[in-house]
């Protein structure tokens, strides 16, 4: 009995590390008491990634080095995850609840005819596996049974804090012997068009996000929100209504169908706080709402609020900051 955790890699400075959600998944998997925790790395198992796994008590890090994996193909990565599951004799595979984590695990589910639960926040019982998972963008939880012999699940982001194991794991790097079938490369990324500086990339990693919604009033109503974001070294985020109306581009959208953010501070201006939006911003450490409606969900769920029109309040804040 053991668990394989799928690790996504992100660049931090000059090196690669296990992503935050991956480390959360490792902590979560360790806490299940479902046997040894193994890792399989989607990408390069750099020393930083292996160190992150060791800190989380991982016994072995499974790595595939097939040249075909240089460019992303979900089906090929699913083959790697399957191979790691066999190598670890795993009866449970956990992946981060990101779009990519959900995608590769769904491939494994489809290939092996296994059950998969997406965006799990809690495990009620390991055998039989009963989990609670986010549905309706996290507004409701579904209790569900995962009945196949090998169980698959992805972890919703920020369901647990990543905590180092009491004793580090050996994190022994083991090479996987995988043959990638050409049919698994039929849908493969042929090229990646890197984002230009100043583009969308700032939103999900920003320490401060200034959000603006319907209260902006129109395409010209975002100047002071952008000015405040600039002043605080943060990024602009908008609600779905703003992108649906074409006031701002979709890549700035925060919500169930946009980006999920977890800044230190989210300043939500003229946003009512519908479920769709809350799904994207609820992981913010502190929320300040600026809204004319004191009863708006965004206000009642916030840590701080100013009751007023964003077009009057934001310029006053900018002025006060420069005083």
């Amino acid at each position, binding site marked *: 009995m053991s668990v394989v955790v799928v690790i996504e890699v992100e660049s931090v400075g000059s090196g690669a590390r296990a992503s935050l959600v991956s480390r959360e998944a490792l902590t979560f998997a360790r806490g299940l008491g479902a046997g040894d925790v193994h890792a399989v790395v989607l990408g390069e198992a750099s020393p930083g990634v292996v160190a992150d796994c060791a800190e989380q008590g991982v016994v072995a890090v499974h790595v595939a080095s097939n040249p075909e994996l240089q460019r992303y193909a979900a089906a090929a990565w699913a083959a790697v995850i399957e191979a790691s599951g066999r190598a670890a004799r795993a009866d449970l595979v956990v992946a981060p609840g990101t*779009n990519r984590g959900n995608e590769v695990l769904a491939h494994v589910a*489809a290939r092996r005819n296994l059950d*998969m639960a997406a965006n799990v926040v809690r495990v009620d019982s390991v055998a039989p596996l009963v989990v609670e998972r*986010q549905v309706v*963008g996290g507004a*409701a939880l579904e209790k569900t049974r995962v009945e196949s012999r090998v169980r698959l699940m992805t972890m919703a982001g920020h369901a647990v804090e990543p905590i180092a194991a009491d004793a580090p794991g050996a994190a022994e790097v083991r090479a996987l012997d995988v043959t990638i079938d050409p049919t698994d490369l039929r849908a493969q990324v042929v090229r990646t068009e890197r984002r230009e500086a100043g583009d969308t990339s700032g939103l999900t990693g920003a320490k401060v996000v200034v959000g603006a919604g319907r209260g902006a009033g129109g395409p010209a109503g975002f100047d002071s929100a952008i000015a405040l974001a600039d002043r605080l070294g943060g990024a602009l985020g908008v609600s779905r209504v703003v992108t649906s109306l074409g006031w701002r581009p979709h890549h700035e959208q925060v919500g169930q169908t946009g980006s999920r953010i977890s800044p230190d501070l989210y300043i939500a201006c003229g946003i009512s706080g519908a479920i769709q939006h809350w799904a994207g911003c609820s992981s913010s450490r502190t929320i*300040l709402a600026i809204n004319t409606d004191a009863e708006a969900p965004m206000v009642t769920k916030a840590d701080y609020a*100013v009751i007023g029109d964003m077009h009057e309040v934001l*310029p006053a804040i900018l002025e*006060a900051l420069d005083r």
Partner: protein
Amino acid sequence: MNILVCIKRVPDPTGEVVLTDDGMAVDGRYAGYTTSAHEEAAVAIAVELAEATSGQVTVLSVGSEDSVEQLRSALAVGAHDAVLVEADADTLGPADVAAAIAEVITTREAAGTAYDIVLLGNDAADTGDFQVGIRLAYALGRPVAAGIQTIAVDGSIATLRGEGPDGTEVYEVELPAVATILEGGVSPKYPSVVGRMKAKKAPLDTVTWTGTAKGSGRAGLTVPPPPPSEVVVLGEGPAAAAKVVEVLTKLGVVSR
């Protein structure tokens, strides 16, 4: 080319979530129903693709008779015909829905209508399983790309683009293929009066799935109670600005 778009009727996610009395489903009676957001984008992509290739768009939904409302909405923005696979969607799991869609595709293919590309939402706004499109692709033996936002077709090759962790990722996939769509690559389409009139008369085929449901494994739903509001109201209007700056300073967002 023939394009199939699969859409789902879901409780409007901008409304409050209310559960049915037995706690087994979301009751959309108060919030109303809509098409899952990513699938609205899938319909828009399909209609544009059909316009560019003189193609046909068929829209399909697995669900109750009420799903006809969402099928008609898709017809009103340019889909040509519709299929309702009548089923109680709440009792089906993602593998069941994929099997039901696959059956329609293979049946129609045997009758002479083959779909070059099948589009679905990346994940449904209500159940959020992230699996139906991918399971469907395997059932059909076709390649699948997920999280796609724009599609262009040249001959038998589809160029699919979506946002990845490092930028826009481009796939070139040989048709027939499956793609799951994320909102954001195309503008939503709104029906015209003429579109609505056409939609009323457009052909709508109702079928039933002959397979046996595996089920979703759902044992019940809960809506976590909202935590008691602990909001600190800093003030009203521009007069609150100084207090806001105090909070920003306390949080370390600005240094004084």
